């Protein structure tokens, strides 16, 4: 006998047509899976009744059979001390990271040697070299089989949450992991947005008639201090519609760092020196975490253990000592809070509700600091560990088609501006950061040289003015541009970001219809600067960047003028100019060429002006001659036609 769930009126599905969908919170420390049963969201437990699956995977190989065994969750964590190198935790931190990234060296894992073939860093385990994607896939696989056992059928799909701050590489890595685990991703959902859905804030805020509910909607801040990431997001809700106004955060700040602060305290107080043994390090981390968790409930926690060296530690950590230890980290979360308010142009007092998400918000001091910052009581009624999974499940239910309630439309934003490289190494932003997605923007570009038949398109992400300072995402080439004079070709470049925040860039040459496009396969192998430091750099180097841009633009302009002039001179210089005039233009060109090599914007500008003045009469003579040539033997009507043609190509820049 099948087990049935209650459906909304008129929406019973046909037998065997239940569209089972789940929401997955794939966390740094813990992962959860939730679904909607008879209209109510529930977090799904395993056989022992635990809803939380620690994001820990252990790999082992049977020496005799050579068979590989993968264990996920609590069972894997039990191996953390005895077999640390084959026990992978906090793998989310490594998602989408390239070789040489800080996250790798800090992870405590052993990585396979980087070489030509392996662009993605791989962790050396008993089961071979595994990438972060493969390890994440094992976690997702465990959640998928738990969900399928709980729901009694195959899943049609899942909504997986990611930090709002994840870049394209990290989002794509998450999608890849889901595919490996045999999950169809209905959508990647930003964690704060999921939390807002879980609280049903759209309804509660509008029906409760909050004093802040204006025509512009209610503002909600989601403060998500999880195991490995910190996010602050500002959402606006208008008539049940969610819109992410701004997000900021720190992809490398979380409960793990609070643990590390406690570990540092233990090491110092116990005079343990540097802990080199991997097993000892994990033991210490677990002790620190246990103490932290105990201090959310009580005034002090006792820490007691013995290291493999025989050194032992036994001391109690008081709540006030603990709060002192974590204060710098709590303060670090306030900077992004200020930034989202600034980005959205909003005063802290205008925020109508503050939602706490993530295990670290159980710490009383964290709640206190945030309610001080926003000047209001924070919302923490729903279990902060489950709230994201619950929201994802509600969204999955809608996306799987189990609910007609389609007015729950979500708008997310892209975290960093997307653009492409133009001449002179400048980054031209096509989509600005914090633009709501999905979005498509087109911009027209043209050729730089006469007869240019190909154009290289370099897609970059970041806020800086120079390409070198931005993150390179992809390169591709548009070929088969028909040979034309510089500036005549019309190349439309379209940037499209889908609902998951993934980017497709396409380029089309309008005359010939040549097309090239690329799905931004994020560049895992690239050296990745942390997003938050990218933003910080962009602020800090604003004026420097402005000058660099001005210089680069001036250089490009000067080179373009030289190139055009040289082409013209070669064709008919001797026809229109005498030796003296030629020598004069030559001299002025030389001045421009040497000015280009200098870093002096004004000098380049002046030399170009001088050259333009010096070649004025030459240009005039050429124009007159070509007009004469064009008009000879033409009727008045035809002249009118060709003028229209000229006008239309002029606008094509």
């Amino acid at each position: 006998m099948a087990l049935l769930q209650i459906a909304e009126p008129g929406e019973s599905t046909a037998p065997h047509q239940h569209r089972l969908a789940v929401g997955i919170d794939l966390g740094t420390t813990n992962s959860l899976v939730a679904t909607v049963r008879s209209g109510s969201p529930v977090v799904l437990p395993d056989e022992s009744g635990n809803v939380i699956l620690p994001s820990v995977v252990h790999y082992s190989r049977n020496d005799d059979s050579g068979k590989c065994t993968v264990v996920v969750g609590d069972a894997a964590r039990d191996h953390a001390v005895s077999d640390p190198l084959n026990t992978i935790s906090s793998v989310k931190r490594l998602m989408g990271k390239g070789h040489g990234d800080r996250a790798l060296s800090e992870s405590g894992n052993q990585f396979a040697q980087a070489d030509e073939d392996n662009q993605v860093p791989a962790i050396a385990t008993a089961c071979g070299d595994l990438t972060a994607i493969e390890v994440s896939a094992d976690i997702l696989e465990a959640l998928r089989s738990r969900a399928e056992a709980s729901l009694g059928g195959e899943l049609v799909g899942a909504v997986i949450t990611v930090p709002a701050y994840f870049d394209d590489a990290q989002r794509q890595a998450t999608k890849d992991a889901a595919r490996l685990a045999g999950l169809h991703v209905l959508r990647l959902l930003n964690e704060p947005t999921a939390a807002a859905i879980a609280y049903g804030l759209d309804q509660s805020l509008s029906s409760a008639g909050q004093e802040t509910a204006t025509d512009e909607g209610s503002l909600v801040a989601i403060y998500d201090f999880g195991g490995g990431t910190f996010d602050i997001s500002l959402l606006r809700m208008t008539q049940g519609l969610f819109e992410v106004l701004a997000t900021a955060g720190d992809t490398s700040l979380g409960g793990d760092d609070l643990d590390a602060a406690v570990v540092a305290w233990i090491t110092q107080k116990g005079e343990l020196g540097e802990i080199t043994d991997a097993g000892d390090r994990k033991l210490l981390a677990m002790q620190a975490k246990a103490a932290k968790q105990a201090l959310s409930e009580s005034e002090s926690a006792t820490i007691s253990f013995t290291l493999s060296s025989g050194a032992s530690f036994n001391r109690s950590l008081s709540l006030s000592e603990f709060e002192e230890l974590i204060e710098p980290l709590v303060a670090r979360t306030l900077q992004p809070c200020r930034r989202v308010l600034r980005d959205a142009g909003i005063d802290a007092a205008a925020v109508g509700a503050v939602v706490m998400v993530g295990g670290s918000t159980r710490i009383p001091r964290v709640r206190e600091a945030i309610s001080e910052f926003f000047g209001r009581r924070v919302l923490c009624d729903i279990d902060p560990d489950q709230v994201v999974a619950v929201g994802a499940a509600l969204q999955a239910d809608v996306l799987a088609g189990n609910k007609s309630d389609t007015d729950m439309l979500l708008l997310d934003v892209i975290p960093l501006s997307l653009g492409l490289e133009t001449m002179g190494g400048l980054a031209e932003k096509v989509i600005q950061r914090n633009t709501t997605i999905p979005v498509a923007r087109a911009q027209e570009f043209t050729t730089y040289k006469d007869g240019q038949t190909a154009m290289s398109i370099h897609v970059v992400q970041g806020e800086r003015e120079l390409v070198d300072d931005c993150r390179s995402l992809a390169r591709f080439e548009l070929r088969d541009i028909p040979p034309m004079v510089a500036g005549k070709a019309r190349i439309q470049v379209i940037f499209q970001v889908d609902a998951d925040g993934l980017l497709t860039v396409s380029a089309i040459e309008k005359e010939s219809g040549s097309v090239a496009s690329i799905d931004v396969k994020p560049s895992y192998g690239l050296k990745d600067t942390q997003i938050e430091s990218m933003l910080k750099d962009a602020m800090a180097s604003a004026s420097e960047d402005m000058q660099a841009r001005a210089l680069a633009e001036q250089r490009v302009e000067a080179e373009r003028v030289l190139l055009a002039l040289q082409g013209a001179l070669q064709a008919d210089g001797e026809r229109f100019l005498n030796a003296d005039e030629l020598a004069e233009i030559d001299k002025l060109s030389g001045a421009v060429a040497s000015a280009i090599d200098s870093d002096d914007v004004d000098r380049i500008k002046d030399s170009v002006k001088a050259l333009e003045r010096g070649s004025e009469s030459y240009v005039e003579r050429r124009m007159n001659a070509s007009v004469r040539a064009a008009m000879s033997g033409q009727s008045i009507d035809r002249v009118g036609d060709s003028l229209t043609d000229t006008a239309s190509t002029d606008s094509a820049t």
Partner: protein
Amino acid sequence: MAITLTETAAEHVRSYLEKRGKGFGLRLGVRTTGCSGMAYVLEFADEVAANDNVFEDRDVKVIVDDKSLVYLDGTELDYGKEGLNEGFKFNNPNVKDECGCGESFNV
């Protein structure tokens, strides 16, 4: 005859209705579909139509239309667990045979 609920089933229905925040009761029904002829309908009910019968058991209003009642009369709605899975079960005395999964049946 009537439709009844076990206490476990009634508890779940009451709690789901409360969480949903609205609804008159629970609608039970059948429709012709599925691999074995008939399939059960289990929905929240927001309104009662002219040809509906309303039963009340353990503080839960159960709504069944005239046509469905022929197939459902005497049914006890139960709630059970199978491994990790859980949900509602129809203990329907009218059923002669059902498909392997039990989602559809024949009378």
